[in-house]
C-alpha cells in the first residue's frame, strides 16, 4: 500500500509540475469555472502590486482577499520567483493531501473502535454491514489519491487559485476535528473562513467533536469553542485593521461576497438569477439566497448528524460549494476527496452511477457551451446556465444520496435489511 501511495503521490506531483509550466496553465487560469473574482491569482497579483505602490487595493472593485492574505502574498511574490510560487502552491496541495490522509485514517480507526464496542447491539445477521478492518488502510489511500488525481483539484492548483490555501486550512480543521484538538481547529477554521466567509458553518461540527461525550459538560464545551473562535476571528480582524488602518476592507471582502456585486458567470447559481431579476427585488433575494447558502442547513443537519461530525462537515462543505456566491471547482474537488472517508455508506447509495455520469458530462459540456456562447457567438447564456444548473442538481443528488445512505445504514444496523410483512418483502418509505 505504501508503494501505491507513493506512486499516486508522484503521479499527482508530476502532473501538477508539468501542467504548471506548460501553456495550459494560463488558459486554465482564465476559465471561469476555475478562477472566480474571489480566488483568481491575477487579481491577487494586481492587488499586491497596488499595495506595494502604496495604493489602497480596496478602493477599486478588483481585490477581494483579506489584508492578512494581502501581506502574505506580497511577501510570497517578493521573496520567490514565479517558478517557486508555483511550487509553493503544489506543496500546499501535497500537505492538504497528507492531512486528509491522516484525517481519514484516524476517523476510520475511531469508527472501527466504536464498532467493536457496540457490536452486540446490532442485528446478528448483518455482519456484512459492519466495516471491515482493511478500510482503515484503503480509505485513506482513496482519499489521498482522489485529492491528488482529481482534475478539479489539479486545475485549481495549476491555475494558482487561492482556494488551494483555503483547502489546506479546511483540511487542518477536519484533522483537528477527528483529533479533538480545539485550538488548532478554531485557528484553522477562522483562517479558512476569513476570506471565504461561508465555511464558518463548520463551527457546528467542530463544537460537537470537541465536546466531551459526558453530557453535563457539553454545553460548557460548546461555549468555550464558540468563544475561542470568536476571539480568534475578532483579533485577526483587528490585525487586518492595523495593517490597513481603516475598515474599508470589510466591505470589499464580505460586502462583495454577500451582495454578489460581480455577476461574471461561474459554476454557481447566483449570476444568472441576479442578471435576470428586477432590481428592486434584489435585497429580498440576496437575503434568501445567502441564508440558504450559509445558515439554513447548519442547525437541522447538526441535530440529525450529531454522532458523526465529519459527515456533518462533509455535507456542509458540499452545500456551501453548491450554493455560495462565487463557487469554483476547487471547492468541488475538495469535498469530492472527502467522500471516500464515508465508504461504508456507499453500499446504500443508489444514484452513484447517474451522478458520476452527470459530473463527467457537465465538466465536458461547460467549456463546449462556453465556446459556443463566447467565441462562436451562436449559443447564449441560457445554454451555459443550463449546464451549471445540471451541475448543481447533480451535486445536490450526491449529497442527498449520501445522507440517506447514512440514515438507511443506521436503520439497517438496528432492524435488519429485510422486513417481511405477511410473507412479502416490505418497502421502507421516507416521508
Amino acid at each position: 500500500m505504501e508503494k501505491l501511495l507513493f506512486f499516486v503521490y508522484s503521479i499527482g506531483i508530476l502532473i501538477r509540475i508539468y501542467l504548471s509550466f506548460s501553456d495550459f496553465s494560463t488558459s486554465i487560469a482564465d476559465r471561469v469555472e476555475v478562477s472566480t473574482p474571489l480566488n483568481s491569482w491575477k487579481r491577487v497579483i494586481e492587488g499586491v502590486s497596488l499595495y506595494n505602490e502604496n495604493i489602497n487595493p480596496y478602493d477599486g472593485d478588483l481585490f477581494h482577499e483579506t489584508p492578512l492574505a494581502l501581506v502574505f502574498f506580497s511577501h510570497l511574490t517578493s521573496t520567490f520567483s514565479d517558478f517557486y510560487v508555483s511550487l509553493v502552491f503544489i506543496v500546499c496541495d501535497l500537505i492538504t493531501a497528507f492531512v486528509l490522509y491522516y484525517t481519514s485514517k484516524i476517523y476510520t480507526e475511531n469508527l472501527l473502535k466504536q464498532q467493536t464496542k457496540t457490536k452486540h447491539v446490532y442485528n446478528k445477521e448483518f455482519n456484512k454491514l459492519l466495516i471491515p478492518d482493511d478500510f482503515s488502510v484503503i480509505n485513506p489511500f482513496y482519499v489521498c489519491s482522489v485529492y491528488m488525481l482529481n482534475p478539479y483539484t489539479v486545475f485549481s492548483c495549476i491555475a494558482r487559485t487561492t482556494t488551494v490555501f483555503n483547502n489546506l486550512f479546511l483540511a487542518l480543521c477536519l484533522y483537528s476535528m477527528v483529533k479533538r484538538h480545539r485550538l488548532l481547529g478554531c485557528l484553522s477554521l477562522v483562517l479558512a473562513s476569513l476570506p471565504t466567509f461561508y465555511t464558518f458553518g463548520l463551527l457546528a461540527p467542530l463544537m460537537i467533536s470537541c465536546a466531551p461525550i459526558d453530557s453535563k459538560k457539553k454545553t460548557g464545551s460548546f461555549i468555550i469553542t464558540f468563544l475561542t473562535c470568536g476571539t480568534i476571528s475578532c483579533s485577526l480582524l483587528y490585525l487586518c485593521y492595523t495593517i490597513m488602518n481603516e475598515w474599508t476592507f470589510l466591505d470589499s471582502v464580505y460586502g462583495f461576497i454577500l451582495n454578489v456585486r460581480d455577476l461574471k458567470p461561474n459554476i454557481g447559481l447566483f449570476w444568472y438569477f441576479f442578471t435576470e431579476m428586477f432590481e428592486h427585488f434584489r435585497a429580498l433575494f440576496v437575503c434568501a439566497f445567502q441564508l440558504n447558502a450559509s445558515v439554513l442547513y447548519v442547525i437541522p443537519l447538526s441535530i440529525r448528524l450529531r454522532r458523526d461530525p465529519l459527515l456533518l462537515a462533509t455535507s456542509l462543505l458540499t452545500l456551501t460549494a453548491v450554493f455560495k456566491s462565487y463557487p469554483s471547482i476547487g471547492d468541488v474537488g475538495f469535498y469530492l476527496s472527502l467522500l471516500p472517508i464515508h465508504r461504508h455508506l456507499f453500499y446504500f447509495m443508489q444514484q452513484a452511477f447517474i451522478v458520476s455520469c452527470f459530473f463527467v458530462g457537465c465538466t465536458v459540456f461547460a467549456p463546449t457551451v462556453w465556446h459556443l456562447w463566447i467565441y462562436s457567438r451562436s449559443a447564449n447564456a441560457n445554454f451555459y446556465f443550463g449546464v451549471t444548473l445540471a451541475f448543481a442538481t447533480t451535486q445536490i443528488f450526491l449529497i442527498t444520496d449520501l445522507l440517506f445512505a447514512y440514515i438507511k445504514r443506521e436503520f439497517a444496523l438496528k432492524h435488519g435489511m429485510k422486513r417481511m410483512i405477511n410473507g412479502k418483502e416490505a418497502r421502507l418509505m421516507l416521508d
Partner: protein
Amino acid sequence: MGLLTDPSVGHGALTSIFVRHHNRFCIVMYIVSVVLFCMLAHYSLSSQTYFSENALLPGLVKGQLNDNTGSSFRDHFRELNAEAQHYETETPHAYLISKFKNLRLETYSHNFTLNYPLKKNTKYTGRNVYGILRAPRSASIESIVLSVPYRAPSSVFPSTLPGLAVMFQIAQFFRQQIYWAKDIIFLVTEHEQLGMQAWLEAYHGTSCGSPGVLDSGKLSGRAGAIQAAINLEIHSDKIDHIDIKLSGLNGQLPNLDLVNLAHRLCNKESVKHTFNNVDGGAIGRSKVNSYYTNLSTMMSMVMTQATGVPDGNHGLFHRFGIEAITLEGYEKEGRGIYSSVFQVGRVIEGMFRSLNNLLERFHQSFFFYLLPSTDRYVSIGLYMPCLVLLVGALFLKAFSTWIQHSSEHKSGDSSAQATIPERLNVGMVSVITLGSHVVGLILLPNLAPAYFTHFWNYIPTHRALLLGYGLLSITIVCLLPIIMNKCLNSFKSSNWVLLHVICLLELGIGLLCVSMHNFSLGYLTALVYVLPAVCIKSSQNRIIVKLLWLIVHPMCSLFWITAYITYTAYPELPISDFLTKVLEASGQWMVLSTIDNMIYGNWAFSVGVLLLLPVWTSFWCLMFLPTNVSQKLKAE
C-alpha cells in the same frame, strides 16, 4: 422528491425492466430516432420562417439600382473580360486597384503567404484587393462586406467575372447614396478560401490554424467591426436561379434572419431562388412529392454541413461572429425566361440597405436549425431529440451494464464482496484508455502527417499519408488481440465492466459535444457507431460483433464513404480501377482534411483521431481482453 427519497436499496421495478430488456430498448430508441429524423422534413414538424429582427425592415424600400448613371454594366463587364483574357492564370491586381480608385473607394491591397505545411520550403503567395466606402452618416464603427472570389480563366471552377462586374456596378451606385450608416467593404480575394481566410485573419489580427502555416500579413486600412458579409459568385449575365449557401466552417450556420432576408428579397425582385439547388415553392406539388423534396433538401444540407468544410467563402466569416452567406447565380442554359443582373443587383442593394438599418448585432432568430426548404426551418429543440435518443441508447446500455454488475456483486457472493473488493482492474483499464488517447494525440493532423511525408518523401503526399495512417491502423488492429491474449493472462477477470462503461460514456458524451457544434456530423457519426457499440458485451463477444466493429473502424468508414461517392460518380468502372481510385481518393481526402485543419482550424479530422479512434481502440481491446468465464463453466 420521490426521485431523491426512494429508499429501496434494491432497484425499483422500472429500473429492473430497463436493465433486463436494455438491448430491446436500445434498438427501439435507434429506430425511433431515425424515424423522427425523417419526420422532421414534414410540414407538421417544421415551421414557416419569419423575421425576428424587426430592424431589418426588408422590402420597405424600392430597389433603385439601374444603368442610367455612370458606366453601364455592359461596359464594366466588357472591360473586365478583356483584362481577364490578358492574364490567363493570374489576377489583374493593377487593373482592380485602378478600377476601385476610379470608383472613388479607399483602395488597399493585402499580401499573404502560405508555407505549405506538408512540404518544407514550399511557399505560395497571394494578394487581395479591397476598397472601403466610408459611411457618410457615422464614424467607422461598423461595416458590411461584399466579397467576390477572383477566378482566372484557367481556373477549374466556373467564372465569377459577371459577379465582379455586378460589384463594380453596385459600388458605383452605392457611392452616390447618402444614407449609409455603416462602412461597406468591397473585397476581391485570390486563391478561393485561402485569400479570404488570410484577409479575415489580418483584419482581426489573429491566427486560426497551426502557427506559422498561413502568414496573413498586415492590413493598411480597416473599417469598423464587420456586422455581416455577402459573398457573390455569379457565373453569367443571364441568371437562371440564385442559390443561397449557408454551411460554414465546422458546420457553423449564419443567423436565420440573414438567410430569410436573402430569400425574401429574391422573392420581391422575382428572382428564382433555391436552397441546395432545390426550389422551395410547394405550389403545384402533391403532398407526398413535396415531402420527398423537403427530405432530400434537408439530407443534402446535413451532408454538406457534416463535412465541416464551408461550401463558399462566406463560411470562413462565421467563426469571427460575422453572419455571412453566399449568393451563387447559375447560368441560364438554352432559351427561356432569365433574371438579369440588375434584378440580382437590386436584391443585393436591398440586403445592404436592410443591414444598414441594423441597430445591434444579429442575436435574435436562430443559429441552430435545419432547412427542409427555402421557407421552412426545423429548430434545435426538434432535431436534438433525435440525437439524444441515440446517445440515450448508449447511456442506457452503460447504465444497465453497471447495474447488472453491481447487483451480481450484491446478491451473489456476499462473503466474496468483503474479501475481493470489486475487481474492476482500475489500473489496467486506465492504462488502456490512456494509451489509446495518447495514440490519438500523436496522430493529430498537426503532428503525424509531417513525419509521414518526411519519411516517405519520394512518393506523393496523399499516398504517404494513406500509407502512414493505414499501416498504423493495421498494426493496431492486428497486434492488440495478440497482446491482449498473450501478455495479459495474469489480469484475467470475469468481465471488464469498467472499461466497457467508460467507452460507452465517452462515445456518448463526445457525440453530444460534437453535435452541439455541428449537429450533422454528430448525428451521422452516431448513426454509424451507436448500433455496433450497443451490440458489444463486457465479455465473450461473438465473432460477428468483432467483424461488425472492424467494419466501422474510422479508416474503414472513410474507405466506405469514398467508395460510395466514387461509385455514384463513376458507376461503370472495372473493379480494379475502382479500388485504386477509391484508395487514391481516400488519401487525397486525408491530405485535404489535414491541410484544412492546419490552415483554417477545421476539426473534423481531430474528432476522428481524438474521439472515434480512441473509443474504437478501447472497444477493440475490450473484445480481446482475457476473461475467465469459460473456466467457471468448466468447473461447474
